[in-house]
């Protein structure tokens, strides 16, 4: 398995996260996708033992994760995991997600912060946003997901190929779940514990959280209309 860590200016946290992944019993290969960082994220990651895929300039989270997926698929990895580069996802919880996919119970195992409500809980605005998307996903596609924006998942090659083919350029989490469901991929959730950021700064403040909600909601509704009219899957959130 390869663990893909998208990172933008995460020099203060990426090294510790890569080392933590290397200490796991069933340790995965680690790929840090550097999204045009202006600090030494790539160097720190490489020194800690990660493979580094360096985008030539800042492309946004969607293109960054998608590049990591492409890298994993090209090298024949059976499973591709994705964790935040800021260290908020505890790598120890990966094993439970991997178990679901390995046992072929799911094509895509998603970590949920809200199934058991353990660990660090994010801001009220973000929790509201997450619950809103959960409701929307249920209404628009029948998916019962508690934490559509967690960003911690493990995919088999089938699900990874769906994401490789099309992945929204920004705020891609919710849109990608719909694409996976429409492609017939089985999605299961497993509780995970989040941690506070180890360093760096979140890219989503209160204003962006509202923008995120509005933008993704419109994209999902357009995607649904398009689907009913017999078009493609999802909008470019």
């Amino acid at each position, binding site marked *: 398995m390869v663990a893909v860590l998208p990172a933008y200016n995460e020099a203060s946290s990426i090294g510790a996260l890569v080392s933590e992944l290397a200490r796991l019993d069933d340790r995965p290969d680690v790929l840090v*996708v550097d999204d045009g960082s202006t600090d030494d994220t790539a160097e720190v990651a490489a020194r800690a033992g990660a*493979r580094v*895929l*360096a*985008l*030539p*300039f800042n*492309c*946004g989270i969607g*293109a960054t994760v*998608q*590049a990591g997926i*492409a*890298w994993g698929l*090209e090298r024949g990895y059976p499973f591709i995991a994705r964790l935040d580069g800021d260290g908020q996802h505890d790598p120890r919880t990966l094993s439970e997600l991997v178990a679901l996919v390995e046992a072929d119970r799911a094509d895509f195992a998603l970590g949920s912060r809200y199934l058991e409500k353990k660990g660090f809980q994010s801001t009220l605005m973000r929790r509201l946003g997450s619950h809103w998307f959960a409701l929307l996903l249920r209404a628009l596609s029948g998916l019962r997901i508690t934490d559509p924006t967690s960003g911690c998942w493990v995919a088999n090659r089938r699900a990874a190929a769906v994401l490789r083919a099309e992945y929204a*350029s920004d705020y891609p989490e919710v849109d990608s779940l719909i694409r996976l469901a429409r492609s017939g991929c089985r999605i299961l959730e497993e509780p995970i514990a989040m941690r506070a950021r180890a360093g760096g700064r979140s890219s989503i403040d209160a204003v962006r959280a509202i923008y995120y909600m509005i933008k993704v909601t419109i994209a999902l509704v357009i995607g649904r209309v398009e689907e009913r009219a017999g078009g493609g899957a999802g909008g470019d959130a």
Partner: protein
Amino acid sequence: MLEPYQWVAVVASGGATFLVVELIRRRRIQHVLWLPWLFAALVPAVLGVWIRPWAKLARFLGILYQPLLLVALASLLSFAMLLYLSVVVSSLIRKNLVLAQELALLRSRFDEANRRHGPIG
């Protein structure tokens, strides 16, 4: 005979058309973009010289203050231009992202080959 304000419209339109043609000639503007700009540059002259059809249309539509029709048309044209440019820019952004990903993946393959077989070139 043209009224002074019509001359202003014609001269302004001529200037704008010259500017667009000059940019096309110097290849500073790509072919997907120049046609709408050329059209937009010629519109003030057309509207300024042939006033009667527009005045008739405004009356037909029940617009009491006839110049408002021109304002509405200008707004519509601006909207169409901006929308068209957004479509073109969106397409370029998509292509740019694909190129950036491909470049990163190729560089990674190149580095791996270098590590395995020693430096190339």
